[in-house]
Structure formats: C-alpha cells, structure tokens
C-alpha cells in the first residue's frame, strides 16, 4: 500500500493543481463519510421506527456521496487509490472533514442541529458546484444536491417541532445550538454561498422561535487536517476489522 500522504510531488504546475482539487474533494468526501458514520450510530436507537428509517436513508445518501467523491479523489492520486484505500488506510491528519461532523452524537437535538447546519452548508456547496468546469464533479454535485435538499428539509421539520414542542425539547435544542454553532462558524467564510447558508439557517431558527447564537469560531475547523480525538475514535472503530486483517479483501 503506497502512502496516501497528499503533499505535492516535486513538480508543481498541473500536479499542484490536481493536489488542490484533490484536497477540496477530500473535504467534501470526508464531511459526508464521517457524518454518515455518526448517523448510522442511530440505527436501532432512534426515537421511533419511522425516524430510524429516515436517519438510515440520510446516512445512506451521505455514504453514497462519500464513495463517489473518494473514488474521484483516488483517481487523482498518484498512484491511483480506491475509495476503501482512502477510507480505511489514510492517516487521520489527512482527513479534511469539518470537526462539526466528527463530534459525538449526544441526544437527538444535537443530531438534528448538526444535520441542519451540515445540510444547509452542503446544499449551497453542491448547488454551486453543479456548474463547475470539472464535469465529473458537476455531475456528483447535481445528484447530491437533491439528496441534501431532502436532508435539509428533514432537519428543518424537526427543528420546528423541537424548537416549539415542549419546554424540554426547546431547552435541549438551545443547548445543542450553543454547542455546535462555533463549529459551524469555523466552516463559513463570507462568500455568497456562505451568506446564503447562514440566511437559510437563521430563517429556520426564527420560524422555530429559537434564538440565533452569537458568532464564535471554534478551532480547529478540521479542513487543514487537524482534528479532535473524536475522529481518531471514529477511524479506530471503522477500521477495527480491516486493521486486524491487513491486505485482505472483503
């Protein structure tokens, strides 16, 4: 197994451009992969049977996105790597996912808040990428944007219900929002997509009669490969079987 380190090779130019595209793809892919992992932890644990099925659907969508994006990123690697090489053998400090998605699940309110923020963010990204010059990426984005539109809708539905349902559900949503908001801020800049994302989230929270938290940026964002120990724990679990059988096929 060749190293999957993504430092650029000696020749700059096109190789450098490919590396930056690759890192960008890995960011998208890893967000989806790690978020899917966390959502799949809800299987057989959701508040009711219908929601168990709904969360599994979202986890499957995200896993599908991760596989497409990792497959593409792997093709841009020299030598070429597979989706599984990148998921199962890549060092944690080469993961580019947002810390937002690696944080532990907590209660259902935390999961809904995180899904709301992630889906809002992914929606704007994918919507923009539909017209990317890179046709392969544009096709992935066109498929994915429909999926995350549904995720966004699902998170919105629950945000409204939990925000104004009972005193307890409201309290839990406030706690979750306060905890996750800085990790969301860590992802956002000030371009049009980010502003549009913030605007949508603010509108949903307003409708849910939840207060918009004050902006505070948590570090690390995760985008530069620096993560919390939570990612190490996720990867250790994900790789429990493969690590015990190096080189095996499944």
């Amino acid at each position, binding site marked *: 197994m060749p190293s999957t380190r993504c430092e650029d090779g000696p020749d700059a130019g096109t190789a450098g451009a490919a590396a930056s595209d690759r890192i960008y793809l890995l960011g998208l892919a890893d967000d989806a992969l790690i978020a899917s992992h966390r959502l799949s932890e809800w299987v057989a644990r959701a508040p009711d049977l*219908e929601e168990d099925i709904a969360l599994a*659907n979202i986890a499957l969508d995200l896993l599908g996105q991760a596989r497409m994006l990792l497959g593409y990123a792997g093709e841009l690697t020299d030598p070429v790597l597979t989706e599984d090489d990148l998921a199962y053998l890549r060092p944690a400090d080469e993961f580019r996912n947002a810390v937002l998605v690696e944080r532990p699940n907590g209660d259902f309110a935390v999961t809904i808040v995180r899904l709301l923020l992630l889906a809002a963010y992914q929606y704007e990204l994918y919507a923009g990428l539909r017209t990317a010059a890179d046709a392969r990426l544009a096709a992935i984005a066109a498929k994915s944007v429909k999926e995350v539109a549904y995720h966004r809708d699902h998170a919105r539905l629950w945000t409204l219900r939990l925000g104004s349902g009972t005193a307890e559900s409201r309290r839990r949503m406030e706690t979750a929002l306060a905890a996750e908001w800085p990790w969301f801020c860590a992802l956002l800049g000030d371009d049009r997509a980010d502003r549009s994302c913030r605007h949508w989230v603010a509108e949903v929270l307003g409708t849910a009669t939840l207060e918009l938290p004050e902006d505070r940026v948590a570090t690390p964002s995760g985008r530069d490969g620096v993560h919390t120990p939570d990612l190490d724990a996720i990867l250790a679990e994900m790789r429990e079987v493969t690590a015990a059988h190096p080189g095996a096929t499944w």
Partner: protein
Amino acid sequence: MSVLWEVFVRPRRGLAHAHVGSLHAADAETALRNARDVYTRRSEGVSLWVVPASMITASSPDEQDSFFEPAGDKVYRHPTFYEVPDAVDQM
C-alpha cells in the same frame, strides 16, 4: 399521541394512487415524509398521499350482502351480454 396514517402511492404517471400500508406520525407533514422514507425506498412511486386512518369511512362487512350482491345480476351492464351479428367487425 401519534396518529395512524394510511399511505397511498402512485407507482408512475398515468396510474392511480393505490393503498400500500400505514404508519405513525404526529402530523401530516411528518406523515408524508415518513411515507417517502418507508414506502418508496426502492423507487416505488412518483407521488404520495397520506390520510389519517380515522378519516376513512368504510363499508361494513355486515352490509356486504345489501351493498354488493344486488349488482351481481345486472348482467346487461356488461358488453358481453349483447349479441352482435358476425357482419359487424368491431363494436
């Protein structure tokens, strides 16, 4: 208390919605989304209806005889009741 909803799916354009099953949800919006997740995972449909089960008025099996038997002997409602001369090709 969550409500029981009956779910109807239109398998594809041109076909009517057909009953496929039921589910629980607290409100209509949730019921519709649950129906999507539960009953169309394998591309079974292009349109969904959800109806609170309590809103359906159903005929009773006790009335089956008076409801449905009287239609049984009205054979003249069916085209095969009529004889058409062979000379007529299609009718």
